[in-house]
């Protein structure tokens, strides 16, 4: 049976949700095993086991948290050579992208990014599906190298499901970590947490784009979101312009979201953005341009002046709430 490895990032002893999503998928592909590195790795074993990992390779050294990529790449190279897994799955996160790309060069193996599905290929091996052009086209790519291919999977591509009675055996690693080489070190971590619900798990999201015209005008979106108890999102144009911090960005380079309702205000619907939100169950769009591509995705589109419409909408919701 194929051995599927999931690189499981952990935060304070809890696996990131994408790791649990990947383990759930890995159960369909073969025998899942996980690698968890850094302080709290052992504490994450139980949850990884519950989601299907048979074995968790855990190493608690703080260097995995404080030095970017290289310590993890060194250890993964050794582990891959020792155990010979058939497929390496990573979540498409900042840290995993660094590790996966370095590891692919180290091992000389294929790296396939932005995946939303992985399965057995025709005549053996693997086939990886990734959306391109904002999700309008799906490409299937097959690895052509010796050694395990590396696949970076977009968060929320699969739903995480615990498995009845499943538990992992821990293999506690104590290999020496070489930190003598020149490497990027994390000196400080700064949080820019948003108020209200988090984009990742909000049922309703209100997102604003360049059509709002000015950073001050983003308040229209903030007010509407507050009235709905919704999370606030933003397009890349808005984030690049400095109107909102990066943590708000929805899209290719930002977050992938799957809320029940996504309200896009003054967002034209560039591919960069839509790839991150077209999984929403229902999309509502407000834009002054009837030709805006967002209207091709929206369940309800309203062509109009957002400066009038959005405050009206907020007010109407306030009245209904009574």
């Amino acid at each position: 049976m194929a051995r599927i490895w999931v690189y499981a990032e952990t935060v304070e002893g809890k696996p990131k949700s994408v790791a649990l999503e990947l383990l759930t998928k890995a159960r369909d592909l073969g025998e899942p095993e996980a690698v968890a590195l850094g302080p709290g790795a052992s504490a994450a074993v139980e949850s990884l086991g519950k989601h299907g990992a048979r074995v968790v390779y855990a190493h608690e050294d703080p260097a995995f948290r404080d030095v970017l990529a290289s310590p993890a790449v060194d250890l993964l190279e050794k582990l891959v050579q020792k155990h010979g897994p058939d497929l390496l799955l990573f979540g498409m996160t900042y840290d995993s992208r660094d590790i996966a790309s370095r590891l692919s060069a180290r091992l000389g193996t294929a790296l396939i990014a932005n995946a939303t599905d992985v399965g057995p290929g025709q005549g053996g091996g693997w086939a990886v599906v990734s959306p391109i052009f904002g999700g309008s086209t799906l490409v299937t790519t097959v690895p052509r190298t010796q050694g395990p291919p590396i696949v970076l999977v977009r968060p929320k591509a699969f739903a995480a499901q615990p498995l009845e009675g499943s538990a992992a055996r821990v293999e506690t690693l104590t290999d020496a970590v070489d930190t003598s080489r020149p490497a990027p070190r994390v000196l400080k971590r700064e949080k820019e947490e948003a108020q209200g619900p988090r984009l990742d798990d909000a049922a309703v999201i209100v997102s604003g784009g360049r059509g709002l015209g000015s950073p001050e005008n983003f308040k229209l979106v903030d007010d509407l979101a507050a009235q709905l108890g919704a999370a606030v999102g933003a397009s890349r144009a808005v984030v690049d312009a400095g109107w909102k911090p990066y943590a708000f960005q929805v899209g290719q380079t930002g977050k992938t979201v799957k809320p029940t309702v996504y309200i896009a205000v003054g967002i034209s619907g560039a591919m960069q953005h839509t790839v991150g939100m077209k999984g929403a169950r229902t999309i509502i769009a407000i834009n002054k341009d009837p030709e805006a591509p967002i209207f091709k995705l929206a369940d309800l589109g309203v062509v109009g002046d957002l400066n009038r419409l959005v405050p009206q909408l907020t007010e109407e919701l306030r009245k209904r709430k009574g």
Partner: protein
Amino acid sequence: MAINVVVCVKQIPDPSAPARLDPASKRLVREGVDLVLDPGDEHAVEAALQVAEGAGGEVTVVSMGPARAVDAIRRALSMGGARGIHVQDPALQNSDALSTARVLAAAVKGQPFDLIVCGQESTDGSTGAVPGQLAELLGLPLLSFARKLSVEEGKASIHRQTDEGYDVVEAPLPAVVTVTGGINDPRYPSLRGIMQSKNKEVRQLTLEAIGLSGKAGEKALTQEVVDLQPAQARKAGRVIEDKGEGAREIVDFLAELKVI
């Protein structure tokens, strides 16, 4: 001490034009589409220029691509780059990320540099693998997803994008840095810059010249695209024009969806 910077750039089909794939070759259709310097790379060029200008160094622009990719190099030179290196070889058609990284690594090896700057990912492919692979092949630290960059006393320091905010990360030089779109506002080339760029040297290199004959491009593919399908499209819904009832329509719809 002067700090010399290499910036890696890519020419891509104008991202504001609708993209098309050729169903036969399964590659991007480049014919009849305007080709531009990747807008993400403009931020990399700007970041490279700011570092070099602040430290009295020079910027070398490196690109791999067909003959016309030289236009993207010239664009970066017109912004202020000192010289270009263009790796061009028929065998490089259809290169994948690892192959591209091998070519760029070999091309910059003969070049004295303190820092390599790249965009965090190309706007057309969005894989984002080349900078990490390049750093690994050169044995250099990678400072990724920088939204702020400062270089001093033999080290580079960045504000690295995270899900919750940013991390302050530092590495000794030489190093590879990738930048996000938020890092700066790229300058427009001046008329003088455009005129001067025409006389700047762009070295043309083949695979043989960088010692990679048969080791990159089509002969060394790590992966192959085997299928292309249109994704299941979302069904477009109702589009109405707001004549004063728009807000009410949305509220009714939200009530129907039971979110209020």
